[in-house]
């Protein structure tokens, strides 16, 4: 492929190509630069400068044969130039300068190799560092690892672009101020830090998953971004059962997206969904990831993501809702509750018990949660209680609970669903 042959016919096409290259290369590019400079914020600035240079030059010169290497070479030169300009002519800069000068072709240096992969993993752990707030971790991960633009992230999280830009800048500064080392943590620290990474990925997924039933389809793209990040992580850290568990959980949940909304955008609950619309490819993939997680850990209870994936898998395996193994689901919820006790998990267990043993067996569990302050504004508590009461024939009480739940939810589709149930009592 010669540059002339691939010369873009117009600036718009060149820009789209550069953006596509950015999506593919940015994580590796930034990660490599972060190792060189020891500063994730500076690495991102250098990488962005290289992208700007590409946008200026590629329309005229055509795309280089190896665009990732081109971007890296430009960014590294800028770094060296910057260090020189500041007259901080320390040994490191000299050394880098010499390396660059000696290299026959700087493009040769940055082939895809294990080294770069380690750097990408370091980048993920750094972007998800607990020194940052959750919002900052999410923004930085989407920006540095997923390669999204600030505009895209702002749009997905329903804030203005300047607000999101400020959040990213603050996060980068916070990493610098805290002198967060560019490394994958080892030993006892790894578990806690990995939990932070997984939390960020799942937060991104849930942001998208909650949106699919609402009004914005663009935000649903976050589900795809999160799954992509999860698969990336699974390939980079293949020995961690919880990583595969999270991938399984996201893929099995996402398999239901095509069935979750009916006509007029009304939400369809899990048991009423047309299961033939579930995405079989994602289910197969998800079940494979779950099997991998289990074989790695040698048990079912390795962690909360594997358990939640196991729960999702119970539904995925049932071709019709009536085939669902509710007894197993109730057991899995019990395991999850003993791992990380939570009133929400307990509420879900109540639902499973109701399905396995009937509403009368589940009502005491739900009633025991009535005073829980954590569930005070949680619409699913009255919603579940309403469902149990309706099935016990206590219609007036059920109606009141559905109406209470409808008043508590912020999601229009969900509210309509609850009001329909109230009217049916």
């Amino acid at each position, binding site marked *: 492929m010669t540059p002339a042959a691939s010369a873009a016919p117009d600036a718009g096409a060149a820009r789209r190509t550069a953006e596509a290259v950015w999506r*593919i290369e940015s994580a590796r590019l930034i990660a490599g630069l972060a190792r060189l400079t020891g500063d994730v914020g500076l690495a991102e600035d250098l990488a962005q400068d290289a992208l700007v240079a590409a946008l200026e030059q590629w329309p005229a010169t055509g795309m280089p044969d190896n665009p990732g290497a081109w971007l890296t070479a430009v960014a590294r030169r800028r770094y060296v130039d910057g260090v020189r300009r500041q007259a901080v002519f320390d040994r490191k800069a000299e050394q880098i300068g010499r390396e660059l000068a000696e290299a026959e072709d700087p493009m040769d240096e940055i082939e895809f190799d294990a080294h770069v992969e380690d750097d990408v993993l370091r980048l993920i752990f750094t972007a998800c560092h607990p020194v940052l707030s959750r919002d900052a971790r999410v923004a930085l991960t989407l920006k540095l690892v997923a390669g999204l633009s600030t505009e895209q992230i702002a749009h997905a999280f329903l804030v203005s672009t300047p607000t999101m830009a400020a959040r990213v800048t603050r996060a980068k500064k916070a990493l610098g101020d805290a002198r967060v080392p560019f490394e994958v943590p080892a030993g006892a620290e790894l578990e806690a830090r990995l939990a932070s990474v997984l939390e960020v990925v799942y937060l991104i997924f849930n942001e998208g998953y909650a949106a699919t039933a609402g009004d914005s389809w663009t935000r649903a793209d976050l589900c*795809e971004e999160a799954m992509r990040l999860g698969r990336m992580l699974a390939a980079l850290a293949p020995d961690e059962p919880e990583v595969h568990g999270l991938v399984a959980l996201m893929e099995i949940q996402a398999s239901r997206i095509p069935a979750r909304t009916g006509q007029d955008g009304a939400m369809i609950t899990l048991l009423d969904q047309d299961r*033939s619309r579930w995405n079989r490819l994602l289910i197969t993939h998800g079940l494979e990831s779950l099997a991998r997680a289990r074989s790695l850990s040698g048990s079912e209870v390795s962690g909360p993501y594997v358990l939640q994936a196991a729960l999702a898998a119970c539904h995925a395996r049932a071709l019709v809702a009536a085939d669902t193994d509710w007894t197993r689901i109730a057991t899995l919820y019990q395991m999850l509750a003993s791992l990380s006790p939570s009133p929400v998990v307990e509420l879900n267990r109540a639902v499973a018990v109701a399905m396995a043993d009937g509403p009368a067996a589940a009502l005491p569990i739900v009633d025991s949660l009535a005073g829980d302050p954590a569930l005070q504004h949680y619409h699913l508590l009255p919603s579940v209680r309403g469902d149990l009461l309706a099935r016990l024939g206590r219609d007036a009480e059920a109606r009141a609970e559905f109406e209470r739940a409808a008043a508590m939810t912020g999601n229009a589709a969900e509210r309509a669903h609850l009001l329909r149930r109230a009217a049916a009592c």
Partner: protein
Amino acid sequence: MRVMVLVKANEDSERGDYSGHEEEFAAMGKYNEELLKSGIMLAGEGLTPSSEGKRVAFGEDGAARVIDGPFAEAKELVGGFWIWQVSSMDEAVEWLKRAPFKGASVELRRVVEPADFEGKISRDLIDAEQRLRDQTGQQG
């Protein structure tokens, strides 16, 4: 969005003759690993020669007639495929340009999503279409 990458067969692949392709295979293994590590690969398989394949032709009356392979015109046949989850067709093109093929023809096609029909036909028809595709096992 999802895209399907259709790799066309060639005379060697149709013969099932992979001798002399060791280097290509190693490069393809590396490429697949790269796809995996980027998180975009949903599926990817190679197909055996069409001599092991079948075709089923349906008459106007719906009657099925089975035709045994091999089939002519190797370059019209599919020799393998991937399904990728990417953010744009441009990204898919850039990924494909990195593949270590030589003298090959590879096609990129976007997978239809229900949203493609939004506003074009009525919701009932979308549902019916979806059900139809589900029944024929074409849902992704």
